[in-house]
C-alpha cells in the first residue's frame, strides 16, 4: 500500500503543480515499465524526495504490479484527471459570476446612500443655519490662519459691524483685537486646548464687553481643520455682580419687567406692557415711550389714561424744542426737577399736572431709537437711582425692541431661505458638533406629541441620560410632573410657541435619578425642511434660583431686621423725648405691638414693697380695662410674676402647656407668651409681656431684639423716674429757695427794724446822758468841783462818741440794704469835688493832689462818692503830719480790668495788720493820733464788693499807703465823658 500511495502522490503532485508536469511526465511513463532503468528511478525518487518527502526518505520502496492493476490504475487516473479538470473549470466560472453580482449590488447601495446623505445634508444645513443664526451666543468660524470663515448675527452685533465686512478677513484686522488677544491666539495654536478663554473686547464708543470664548477644533475628512469659537457674553453678569449689593432690589424689579417682556416679540404689544409694568413697579404717575419714526418722534405707548388718544398720533420733532426731542438728539438722559422752570418743556394738555420728569434715551448701540419718559405730579420726584433704573430698563427695552425687529426679520429670512434653497456649506458632522458644543442643552421635539427627536450632549449631561435613552422619552418624563410642570403643560407651551412665537419661561425639570431642578426654557417653533419642530434651549438656573431665593430670604430678614431696628430706634427716641414714665411705657407697648404685629404687649412694674408686679401700660382694649382695674400679679405668680421674681426671661410657645401661665379672660386668643424682665443694674424694675395669637410666634431673633429693647426701656424708665425725682427735687429746691428768700427777707426786715430801733432807742438814752450831764454842768456848776466837772465832760464825750459809732453802724447797714443804682460815673469829677470839700474843711493844709482825668466807671454814684470820701478822707487825714502831703488818684491795667487807686505819702501802716484794715471798728491808729470811727474802710469794702470788685491795700509805716480797688468788668468806657466834662 505504501508503494501505491507514493505513486499517487507523485502523480497528484504533477497534476497539482502544472509547472512540473513536463518534468514528471516521463516518470509516470517510466513507472509502468517492468524494468525501468535504476538511474531513472533514482532520479525521480531524488526529485520527489527533494521536493516534499525528504523526512520520509527511508520509506521509499519501488514495487512492480501486474497488468490488471496497471489497467485499473490507468482508468482511475483518467477519471481523476477528468474530474479534476472539470472542477477547476467550474470553480473559475463561479467566481466570475459572483464578483459581477457583488459589484452590481454595491453600485445600487452607493446610489441609495448618496441620496440619503444629500437629503440629510440639506436638512442639517438648514438646522445648522437656523441655530447658528438664532442662537444668542456669538459664533465665529476661523481657519487656523486666523481668517474668519463665518459668523452669526450675535457675533456681528457684538463687534458692531455687519457679517459681510468680517467674513474673509483675518481676525487680526478687527480694530478691537489687542496684542493680548493675539498672544492668546498664539498660545491656543500651541495647546489647542478646548478650555474656555475670557476675552475683553472694546469696540469704539461702546462699553467693553467680556466674553467667555470656547474654542473647538472641528476636523473632518478631506477638509482643512476649522476653529469654531463659541462666545458667551458675560459682561452683564460681571457688572450685575458688581452692582448687586447697592442695587439688588432695583435690578430684581428691572429683571422682572424685562423677563416678563422678553418673550413678547411684537413691538406693539411689548411697549404698552413695559410702560404699565414700569409705572406699577416704581409708582410713577405716568410712563410713556416714544420711538423714532423717520426723522420724527412718535408716541407709541403711555400709561396716562387721558393721553391714550395720543398714541401713534402725537409727533414731536427731534430738536431742542421739546424734552423728548432733546434727549433723542443728544442721547443723554435728563432729570427735570421742575418742568415749569425748563424752557424745553412742551405743555401737552393731555399730560397736564406733570411737575417733574425723567427722560432716558432708548439706545441701541450708538443709535437713539426713542425715549422712555417718566412723569411725576411732584416737584423734584426723581433721584439718581431712578435715573439708573430707568436707563437700565431703557437699554433692555431697546434691545427687546431690536430683538423683536430682528425676530421679524429672521422670520422673513427663514421663509426666504426656504424658497431659495441656499447652497449647502457644511456637513452633518459640522452641525452635530456645533449642536453638541452649545453651552445650553438643546432639545428638538415633535410639536404635537412632545416626543424628543434629538438632543445634544449638554442635554444628556444635564439630565444624566444617554443619548439613546433620551430619544425614547417624552417631554413629560423629564419634567417634575406636578402642575404646572407636567406633560400637558409642556405641550401647551409648545402650542403657544407655535401660535404666538418664541416663549421664555422657567421650568421644573427632573433628571434620570429623579432629582428636581430649575431650568430656563427658550422655546421656538420652527419649520425645517418640511418638518415642523420645536427647538428648545434649556439652561440650568438652579443656582440662579437658589441665589434668588437666598436673596429673597435675605431681603425678608433685612426687612424684619429693619423693622426691629426702627422700633428699637423709636423706643430709644421715645426714651429720650418722653420723660413721663406712664406715657413712655404706653407709647412703647403700642410701638412694639404695632411693629411686630403682636396680639398684646404690656408692661408691669414692681411696687415699692416688692410684693406685686403692677400693670402700668397695656395695648388695646384689654390693656385699657386691666389698667382701669389695677391689674397686678403677686411676685412669683404667673409668667410675669415668675420673671419679675427671678429676673429671667420666660417664654411659653404654647401657653396651654406652661404651668405658670396666668389665665387672662381679657386675652383669650393668646397662644404664646413671653415675659422679659426689665433689669437695671441688677435690680428688677418690672417685666414686659408679649403675647401672640400664634402658637410659636417668637423667633430667636425677636427675643434678642426685644430683650435689647427691654434693656433700653429699663434705662428709659429709670431715666424718666430719675427725671421725675429731679423734677420733684427741683420743685423742692425752688420751694426752699422761696422759703429761704422769705426768711432772708424777714431777716432783712428784722435787721431793718433793728437798725431803726437802734437809731432811735440806743441814741435816746445817750442823748439823755449827754443832755442831763450838760444840765448838771450848767445848772449846778457851782456845786461841782473841777474833778466833778471833768467827769461829767468825759461822760458827755463818751456818749457822743457812742452816738458816732451808732451812726457809723447805721450807715454801714444801710449800704447793704439799699438797692444798687448803676449808671455812668466819672470818678475823676467826684474825686475833685471831695478834695474841694476837704480843702474847705481844713484850708490851712497844703496838700498836692493829682487826679487822673476821666475815670469813667459804671456804678452807684452815691456809694462811689462814699468810697472816695472815705479813701480821700483817710489820705487827707493820715497825711496830716506831712510837710509836703501828696495824694494821687489814678488807674493802672487799663486794657484788661482797670485797677483804680488812691495813694498818699502819709503815715502808712504795717503790712502785718493789713488783714484788719477792712474790718468794722478796726483801727490801726489810736483815736488820739487820728480821729475816726473805724468803719470807713469797712464801708469802702462793702461798697466795692457790692459792685463786684475787689479792694486791697499796700502800705509801709511812715511811707504812705495805697488803696487799690476794681469794679466789675461791666464797665462802659469813655462814652459820655464829653457830656460829663
Amino acid at each position, binding site marked *: 500500500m505504501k508503494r501505491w500511495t507514493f505513486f499517487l502522490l507523485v502523480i497528484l503532485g504533477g497534476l497539482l503543480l502544472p509547472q512540473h508536469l513536463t518534468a514528471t511526465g516521463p516518470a509516470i511513463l517510466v513507472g509502468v515499465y517492468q524494468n525501468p532503468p535504476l538511474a531513472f528511478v533514482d532520479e525521480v525518487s531524488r526529485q520527489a524526495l527533494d521536493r516534499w518527502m525528504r523526512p520520509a526518505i527511508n520509506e521509499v520502496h519501488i514495487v512492480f504490479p501486474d497488468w490488471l492493476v496497471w489497467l485499473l490504475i490507468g482508468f482511475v487516473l483518467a477519471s481523476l484527471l477528468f474530474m479534476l479538470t472539470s472542477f477547476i473549470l467550474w470553480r473559475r466560472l463561479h467566481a466570475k459570476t459572483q464578483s459581477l453580482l457583488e459589484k452590481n449590488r454595491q453600485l445600487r447601495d452607493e446610489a441609495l446612500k448618496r441620496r440619503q446623505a444629500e437629503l440629510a445634508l440639506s436638512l442639517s444645513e438648514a438646522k445648522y443655519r437656523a441655530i447658528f443664526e438664532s442662537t444668542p451666543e456669538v459664533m465665529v468660524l476661523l481657519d487656523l490662519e486666523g481668517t474668519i470663515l463665518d459668523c452669526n448675527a450675535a457675533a456681528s452685533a457684538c463687534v458692531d459691524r455687519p457679517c459681510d465686512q468680517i467674513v474673509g478677513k483675518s481676525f487680526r484686522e478687527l480694530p478691537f483685537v489687542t496684542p493680548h488677544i493675539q498672544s492668546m491666539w498664539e498660545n491656543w495654536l500651541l495647546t489647542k486646548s478646548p478650555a474656555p478663554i475670557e476675552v475683553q473686547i472694546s469696540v469704539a464708543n461702546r462699553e467693553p464687553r467680556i466674553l467667555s470664548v470656547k474654542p473647538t477644533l472641528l476636523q473632518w475628512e478631506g477638509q482643512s481643520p476649522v476653529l469654531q469659537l463659541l462666545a458667551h457674553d458675560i459682561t452683564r453678569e460681571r457688572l450685575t455682580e458688581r452692582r448687586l449689593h447697592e442695587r439688588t432690589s432695583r435690578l430684581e424689579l428691572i429683571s422682572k419687567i424685562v423677563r416678563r417682556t422678553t418673550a413678547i416679540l411684537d413691538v406693539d404689544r411689548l411697549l404698552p406692557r413695559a410702560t404699565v409694568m414700569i409705572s406699577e413697579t416704581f409708582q410713577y404717575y405716568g410712563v410713556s415711550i416714544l420711538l423714532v419714526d423717520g426723522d420724527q418722534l412718535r408716541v407709541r405707548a403711555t400709561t396716562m389714561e387721558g393721553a391714550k388718544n395720543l398714541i401713534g398720533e402725537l409727533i414731536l420733532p427731534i430738536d431742542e424744542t421739546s424734552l423728548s426731542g432733546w434727549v433723542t438728539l443728544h442721547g443723554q438722559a435728563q432729570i427735570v426737577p421742575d418742568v415749569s422752570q425748563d424752557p424745553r418743556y412742551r405743555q401737552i394738555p393731555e399730560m397736564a399736572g406733570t411737575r417733574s420728569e425723567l427722560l432716558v434715551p432708548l439706545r441701541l448701540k450708538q443709535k437713539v431709537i426713542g425715549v422712555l419718559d417718566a412723569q411725576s405730579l411732584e416737584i423734584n420726584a426723581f433721584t439718581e437711582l431712578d435715573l439708573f433704573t430707568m436707563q437700565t430698563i431703557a437699554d433692555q427695552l431697546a434691545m427687546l425692541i431690536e430683538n423683536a425687529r430682528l425676530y421679524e426679520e429672521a422670520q422673513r429670512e427663514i421663509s426666504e431661505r426656504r424658497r431659495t434653497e441656499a447652497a449647502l456649506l457644511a456637513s452633518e458632522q459640522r452641525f452635530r458638533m456645533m449642536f453638541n458644543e452649545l453651552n445650553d442643552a438643546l432639545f428638538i421635539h415633535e410639536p404635537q406629541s412632545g416626543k424628543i427627536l434629538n438632543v445634544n450632549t449638554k442635554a444628556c449631561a444635564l439630565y444624566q441620560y444617554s443619548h439613546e435613552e433620551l430619544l425614547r422619552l417624552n417631554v413629560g418624563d423629564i419634567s417634575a410632573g406636578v402642575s404646572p410642570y407636567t406633560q400637558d403643560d409642556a405641550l401647551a407651551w409648545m402650542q403657544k410657541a407655535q401660535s404666538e412665537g418664541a416663549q421664555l419661561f422657567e421650568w421644573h425639570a427632573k433628571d434620570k435619578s429623579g432629582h428636581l431642578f430649575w431650568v430656563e426654557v427658550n422655546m421656538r417653533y420652527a419649520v425645517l425642511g418640511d418638518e415642523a419642530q420645536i427647538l428648545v434651549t434649556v439652561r440650568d438656573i438652579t443656582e440662579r434660583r437658589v441665589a434668588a431665593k437666598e436673596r429673597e430670604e435675605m431681603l425678608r430678614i433685612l426687612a424684619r431686621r429693619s423693622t426691629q431696628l426702627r422700633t428699637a430706634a423709636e423706643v430709644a427716641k421715645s426714651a429720650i423725648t418722653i420723660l413721663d414714665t406712664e406715657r413712655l411705657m404706653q407709647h412703647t407697648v403700642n410701638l412694639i405691638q404695632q411693629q411686630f404685629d403682636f396680639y398684646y404687649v404690656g408692661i408691669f412694674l414692681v411696687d415699692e414693697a416688692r410684693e406685686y408686679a403692677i400693670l402700668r401700660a397695656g395695648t388695646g382694649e384689654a390693656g385699657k380695662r386691666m389698667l382701669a382695674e389695677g391689674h397686678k400679679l403677686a411676685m412669683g405668680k404667673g409668667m410675669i410674676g415668675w420673671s419679675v421674681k427671678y429676673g429671667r426671661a420666660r417664654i411659653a410657645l404654647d401657653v396651654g402647656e406652661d404651668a405658670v401661665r396666668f389665665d387672662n379672660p381679657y386675652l383669650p386668643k393668646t397662644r404664646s407668651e413671653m415675659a422679659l424682665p426689665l433689669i437695671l443694674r441688677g435690680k428688677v424694675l418690672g417685666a414686659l409681656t408679649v403675647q401672640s395669637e400664634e402658637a410659636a410666634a417668637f423667633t430667636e431673633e425677636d427675643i434678642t431684639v426685644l430683650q435689647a429693647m427691654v434693656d433700653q426701656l429699663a434705662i428709659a424708665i429709670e431715666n424718666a423716674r430719675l427725671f421725675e425725682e429731679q423734677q420733684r427735687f427741683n420743685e423742692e429746691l425752688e420751694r426752699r429757695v422761696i422759703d429761704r428768700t422769705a426768711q432772708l427777707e424777714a431777716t432783712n426786715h428784722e435787721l431793718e427794724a433793728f437798725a*431803726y430801733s437802734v*437809731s*432811735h*432807742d440806743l*441814741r*435816746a*438814752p*445817750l*442823748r*439823755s446822758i*449827754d*443832755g*442831763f*450831764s*450838760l*444840765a448838771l454842768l450848767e445848772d449846778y456848776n457851782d456845786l461841782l468841783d473841777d474833778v466833778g466837772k471833768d467827769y461829767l465832760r468825759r461822760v*458827755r464825750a463818751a*456818749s*457822743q462818741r*457812742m*452816738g458816732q459809732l451808732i451812726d457809723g453802724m*447805721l450807715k454801714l447797714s444801710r449800704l447793704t440794704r439799699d438797692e444798687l443804682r448803676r449808671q455812668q460815673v466819672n470818678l475823676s469829677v467826684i474825686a475833685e469835688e471831695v478834695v474841694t470839700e476837704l480843702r474847705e474843711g481844713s484850708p490851712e493844709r497844703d496838700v498836692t493832689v493829682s487826679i487822673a482825668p476821666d475815670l469813667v466807671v459804671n456804678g452807684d454814684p452815691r456809694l462811689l462818692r462814699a468810697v472816695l470820701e472815705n479813701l480821700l478822707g483817710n489820705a487827707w487825714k493820715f497825711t496830716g503830719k506831712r510837710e509836703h502831703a501828696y495824694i494821687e488818684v489814678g488807674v493802672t491795667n487799663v486794657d484788661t480790668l482797670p485797677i483804680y487807686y488812691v495813694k498818699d505819702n502819709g503815715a502808712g501802716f504795717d503790712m502785718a495788720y493789713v488783714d484788719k484794715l477792712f474790718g468794722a471798728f478796726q483801727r490801726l491808729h489810736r483815736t488820739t493820733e487820728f480821729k475816726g470811727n473805724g468803719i470807713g474802710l469797712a464801708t469802702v469794702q462793702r461798697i466795692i464788693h457790692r459792685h463786684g470788685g475787689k479792694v486791697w491795700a499796700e502800705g509801709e509805716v511812715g511811707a504812705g499807703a495805697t488803696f487799690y480797688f476794681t469794679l466789675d468788668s461791666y464797665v462802659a468806657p469813655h462814652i459820655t465823658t464829653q457830656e460829663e466834662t
Partner: protein
Amino acid sequence: MNRRVVLLVEDNPDDELLTIRALKKSKMLNEIIVVRDGAEALAYLFGESGNTPNLLPELILLDLRLPKVDGLEVLRRLRQHPRTKLLPVVVLTTSDEERDVLQSYDLGANSYVRKPVDFAQFMRAIQQLELYWLVLNVAPPVA
C-alpha cells in the same frame, strides 16, 4: 391876751424834760403843752366827742416813734383835717432814716429835725426852731 401854745408830742420823759428845758432857756413865751402819745395828740387837736376843741398850737413838735398812734399817722390825720391842715409841724426825732424823712415831708411836715446826741447841739437846734417858727415865720391864719 391870746394864749400862744406849742404842742410837744413826746413819749420819752427825758426828751420831754430836756426839750422843755431847752425851750425855756431860749426864753420862749409860749405855753408848752405836752402829750405823750399819738392818740393823746389827736385827742388834744380834735377834741374828744362832746368837748369843745382845745386851743390850736402855733407849732407842733412831733416825735415819730410814739405809742398807740405813731407820729406819721398823727401828721397824716392832721393834714387831712381842714382845721389843722395848715398848722406848722416840725418833726423832731432820733431817726435819720431816709424813709422817715421822705414820708414826713410827703405828708406835709414843714421841717424835719434830727435830735443830736450832743445836747449842746440839741439846744442850739431848739433855739433856732423857736426863733424861726415862732418869731420869723408868718403862720397861716387860723381857720
